[in-house]
């Protein structure tokens, strides 16, 4: 057997198109998904202090359903199921919603662990200064909680980026879709998938480096030493 990568060259455009889609899906998912996770974590944390209400129970159910079913099934459910109920939805929108709901469910749980490890002293100092629960969450709890669980958040965002390969199955023209498309034209499946897999690996490494750089800036307060 010989590997022949030259047959890929005519398909550079497809690969770039797919790459762009994968990247923007990931970026939008990360921004919206993490914001949503903060809201979910806040509501569920309130339930811990004041007893569960209907909203926090529903959110808890949402988190469990997402975490205990495969992403591909969630995607099919949205893409095939919603139109059947009379809610038309495009493949891209279905993919985006599925990815956001997925990331938010996992990261809300991760964040919750960070929030719950806030010390009693921090809460008391904030209460003694007269901060309300929302003010405490926003100004005192959130940033240190983020910094404590940041490595897990990075991993989860990468997992969702890699998992997005599945959106090719509902014909979203992402990187994997490009690979399938090329494979169906030039019948060099192995070469195509090798190259695209390598691109995913580079994306994962790049995403991690980017997150780490952002983290160093955001969480500079953790480093000791003289001012």
């Amino acid at each position: 057997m010989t590997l022949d990568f030259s047959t890929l060259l005519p398909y550079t455009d497809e690969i770039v198109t797919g790459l762009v889609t994968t990247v923007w899906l990931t970026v939008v998912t990360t921004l919206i998904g993490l914001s949503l996770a903060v809201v979910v974590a806040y509501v569920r944390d309130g339930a811990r202090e004041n007893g569960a209400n209907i909203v926090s129970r529903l959110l808890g159910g949402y988190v469990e359903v997402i975490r205990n079913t495969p992403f591909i099934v969630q995607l099919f459910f949205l893409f095939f199921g919603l139109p059947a109920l009379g809610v038309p939805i495009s493949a891209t929108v279905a993919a985006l919603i599925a990815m956001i709901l997925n990331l938010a469910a996992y990261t809300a749980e991760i964040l919750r662990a960070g929030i719950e490890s806030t010390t009693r002293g921090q809460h008391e100092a904030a209460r003694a200064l007269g901060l309300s629960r929302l003010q405490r969450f926003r100004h005192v709890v959130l940033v240190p909680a983020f910094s404590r669980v940041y490595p897990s958040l990075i991993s989860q965002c990468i997992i969702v980026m890699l998992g997005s390969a599945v959106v090719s199955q509902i014909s979203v023209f992402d990187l994997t879709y490009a690979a399938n498309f090329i494979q169906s034209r030039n019948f060099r499946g192995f070469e195509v998938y090798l190259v695209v897999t390598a691109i995913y690996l580079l994306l994962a490494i790049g995403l991690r480096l980017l997150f780490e750089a952002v983290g160093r800036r955001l969480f500079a307060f953790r480093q000791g030493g003289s001012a």
Partner: protein
Amino acid sequence: MTDFTTWDIVRNLLLAARWTVVLSLIAFVGGAIVGLVLTLLRMGGLRPIRWLVRGYVDLFQGTPLLMQLFLAYFGAAALGFDVSAWTAASVALTLFTSAFLCDIWRGCVEAVPSGQWQAARVLGLNYLQSMRHVILPQALRLAVPPTVGFSVQVVKGTALASVIGFVELTKAGTMLNNATFEPFTIFTFVALGYFILCYPLSRYARYLERRLYGAGIR
């Protein structure tokens, strides 16, 4: 178009769910065996071997499982083997599982305080003896909750085998959908099937974790 009753749908899905369970077991048991070997290599002596294992883990954690399945399927074909979807899915999922378990277990071994290694060494135990009698028993206790937790990811991972034509729960769902055009019902049942398989594992993992680390900070 054939008429499918709800019972027909459920029955077909249940039959296919067997293969989800079987594939999960293969991947988990196979992955555990390979993962254990990798963990020992990763923790042990030779630097080039440690690097290789690390590269292996990073590779499988840094690429999509779907791509790994495609590569197993098409790669084997390119190498001249005519592999079935069964074989490709089993191999890919086993390797995928082994990489993640290796990473989890390495963390558990490293979590055992280094004083334990030193104590074993000064008693004259060699690497394997220290590992077997001192480190692994302690690491094992730490390893159980995250390992059970990861089994959920394995079960969910088998859903991707549907993409290379392996007929398990998800593939059965798409096939039934093509025949019945009742996607909402069908994918609700499919999701329910996975939930029934995964939720007890998740709960059990959380229970084990609580038991290990106490009730948590309140």
